């Protein structure tokens, strides 16, 4: 009885203070929906910033020869573009979705540690302010690639390394705290009756991703710390003259870097596995096999890192081990792809924008997966290493994979977030413009890479000119298409057709049982799961 009264009183408290308005609401908020929105807006701003840098790169590469920018600035653009898209656009977007949806999906009142949640977000803009400010410093910004290989980032760095290192430290702290919050929320705040194997797959994928983050972000912190001391304090971790080894940098970096790749794709699997059943109006073909496949991919991600390093002269046994382990990942990934296809098989499908993005995800991500398999073969990789083939590969998994899934998720849940339906017409326009331009942008890169065009070089041989022109045109078109998304979102926030609690008839999950827009506090008392 006492508990019940306490709950009621507590309820009242909530209603008193959530009315805080203006800037303070956003600075001081402990509400998972507010923080989710902050993450999503921040990631979209970073997406446009990083996108602008990609436009600079594509403008320079439109023609052979140097025409617009200096090579050093070109290097800064490729570096900061990569860092922003990985740490500023994709990861915060997923964290934003997690913040918005996880508590609603598991019937929790909020994230488990709400103040920590606020801190995780608000340190991010500061970290990127530091990173971006280094572009305007005398020495210029980081120019060693987002992978910051030693000795480019140590012996040959331009003086921006210190700012880069401390900015990455803050991004890492943010990710670790965010991940701890996600893990604790899922472990501890599920509604009574929601066992692990009853959780929505979306929740599962974020659960596993959060574990990966907790395990590898500290390793990144260690890596950048060693880069810092090598650059400024005379250590020689990555310098053979002092007994270290530049290749050691690559081992430690990719021990972080490869799980990081899965950190950016596992949540995408979760989103697509939520949306496809909704629009195929069939339950997911094999829920438990999806859970096990996700876990297997997460486990394997820890023992494949050196496939990024086949050309560094590893011992043969190492090359073979990492080649076979990498190819093994194709098995659980194949389980997933077949699952999505089997879910659609004989479903009564409709093709609203979230579904279009999800289907495009399945096809295009699979292309990225196949090019990944090609790169996994050691002797073949000797040919492809550091060419545009690699660029094509990871953009297929990151743009048409992760980014498309984020768009799919955004369209899917926009009615729940805003209480309005988005414009289906504009959404479809966004989808088709993106789909066509993204393939024009990245598909020819495969051919360029196979023909030997190296990545991260501002100039190229004349025979690559035609493909590069088309790639650049695709790039500009893709960049412009994203502005349509901005229009859709703003229009949807401002008004539009009222959204019912459950706008998609095949959709399942607790988030559709609360009204649209979702009230500021949901599930202060947990629902019963049968």
């Amino acid at each position: 009885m006492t508990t019940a009264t306490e709950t009621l009183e507590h309820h009242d408290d909530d209603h008193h203070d959530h009315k805080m308005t203006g800037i303070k609401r956003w600075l001081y908020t402990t509400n998972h929906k507010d923080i989710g929105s902050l993450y999503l807006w921040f990631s979209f701003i970073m997406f446009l910033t990083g996108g602008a840098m990609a436009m600079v790169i594509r403008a320079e590469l439109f023609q052979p020869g140097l025409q617009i920018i200096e090579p050093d600035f070109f290097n800064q653009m490729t570096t900061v573009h990569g860092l922003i898209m990985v740490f500023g656009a994709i990861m915060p977007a997923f964290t934003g979705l997690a913040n918005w949806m996880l508590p609603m999906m598991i019937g929790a009142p909020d994230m488990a540690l709400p103040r920590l949640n606020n801190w995780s977000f608000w340190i991010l803009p500061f970290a990127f302010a530091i990173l971006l400010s280094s572009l305007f410093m005398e020495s210029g910004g980081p120019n060693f690639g987002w992978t910051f290989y030693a000795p480019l980032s140590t012996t040959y760095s331009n003086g921006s390394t210190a700012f880069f290192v401390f900015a990455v430290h803050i991004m890492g702290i943010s990710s670790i705290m965010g991940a701890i919050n996600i893990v604790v929320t899922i472990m501890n705040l599920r509604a009574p009756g929601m066992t692990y194997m009853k959780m929505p797959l979306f929740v599962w994928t974020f659960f596993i991703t959060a574990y990966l983050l907790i395990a590898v972000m500290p390793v990144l912190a260690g890596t950048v710390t060693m880069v810092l001391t090598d650059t400024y304090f005379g250590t020689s971790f990555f310098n053979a003259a002092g007994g270290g080894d530049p290749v050691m940098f690559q081992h430690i970096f990719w021990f972080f870097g490869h799980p990081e790749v899965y950190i950016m794709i596992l949540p995408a699997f979760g989103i697509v596995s939520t949306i496809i059943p909704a629009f195929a109006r069939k339950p997911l073909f094999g829920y438990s096999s999806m859970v096990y496949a996700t876990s297997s991919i997460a486990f394997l991600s820890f023992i494949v890192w050196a496939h990024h390093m086949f050309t560094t002269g590893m011992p043969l046994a190492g090359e073979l081990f990492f080649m076979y382990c990498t190819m093994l990942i194709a098995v659980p990934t194949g389980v997933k792809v077949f699952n999505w296809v089997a879910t659609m098989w004989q479903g009564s499908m409709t093709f609203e924008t979230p579904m279009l993005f999800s289907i495009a995800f399945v096809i295009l991500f699979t292309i990225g997966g196949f090019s990944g398999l090609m790169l996994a073969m050691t002797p073949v990789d000797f040919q492809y290493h550091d060419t545009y083939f690699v660029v094509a590969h990871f953009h297929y998994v990151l743009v048409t994979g992760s980014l498309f899934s984020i768009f799919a998720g955004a369209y899917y849940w926009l009615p729940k977030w805003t209480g309005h339906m988005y414009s289906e017409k504009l959404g479809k326009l966004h989808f088709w413009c993106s789909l066509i331009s993204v393939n024009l942008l990245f598909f020819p890169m495969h051919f360029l890479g196979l023909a030997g065009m190296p990545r991260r070089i501002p100039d190229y041989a004349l025979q690559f000119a035609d493909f590069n022109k088309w790639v650049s045109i695709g790039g500009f078109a893709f960049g412009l298409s994203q502005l349509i998304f901005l229009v859709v979102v703003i229009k949807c926030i401002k008004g539009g057709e009222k959204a019912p609690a459950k706008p998609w008839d095949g959709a399942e999950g607790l988030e559709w049982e609360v009204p649209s827009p979702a009230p500021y506090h949901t599930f202060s008392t947990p629902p019963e799961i049968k």
Partner: protein
Amino acid sequence: MTTEKYESYYVPDQSHWPIVGAVALFLIAIGAGNYVANLDTGEGIGGWLLLAGIAILIYMVFGWFSNVIDESMAGKYSAQMDNSFRQGMSWFIFSEVMFFAAFFGALLYARVYSVPWLGGAGNNLETMQVLWPEFLATWPLTKTPDGTTTEAMGWNGLPLYNTILLMSSSFTAHFAHVALEQNRRGALKIWLGITVLFGLAFLVLQVEEYIHAYSSMGLTLASGIYGNTFFLLTGFHGMHVTLGTIMLIVMFCRVFKGHFTPDNHFAFQAASWYWHFVDVVWVVLFLFVYII
């Protein structure tokens, strides 16, 4: 039962501490960046920004934790909340383990691969003869390929005393915890006090060891991969011991203020977990950095 616990899950109101903490971290990062980037000239206000950031961070931690302690003392936290804290702390410690793993990884890589390879192991004989034909692969690496020499730190003497100190302190921390659970406040104060003293003694001896290394052994941060791994591993460990000691001192003060009951003492438990973690890291460190 679970439902009842669930219903009273405490969701705090707006808090200004996180944004204060964000500003603090920003100042720390930009200050440290400026300071380090201008290390050779010593110019710039980086150092001051760094100090300001640290001061604000301390203010933030103090204010934030006061809020949490007040809420806890006011009985707003349910068993479920306590569980959230416990799980959060456990995963934080796991992330710390992975941070140390990066440096242990570097140490093992240097010892197993890079130093032997520089000495011509594997198929690297020709490379060695071209680059540094004089180089002798040994561990501890007392002479680097480019000729920097140093002495190796032995394991007996100060490091051994420190090992004994830290391992004993893990036991005393456990005794304090047992005393708390049995509600023997006197024993709790004594054991916790002894733990804090052991921690402080460890830090004093560690500083002593560093002074000895720098002044009479020629072992510095820049003495090649041996000095690098030695100082970064022991240094980061020392920073964690410092943090752990501060946590224990705070717990000591709270015990004197009458906080904690046999059933409700998450903060104490967290500090004690952290202390055991620091101890385990030291044991591994003692083994791989000093002995083997």
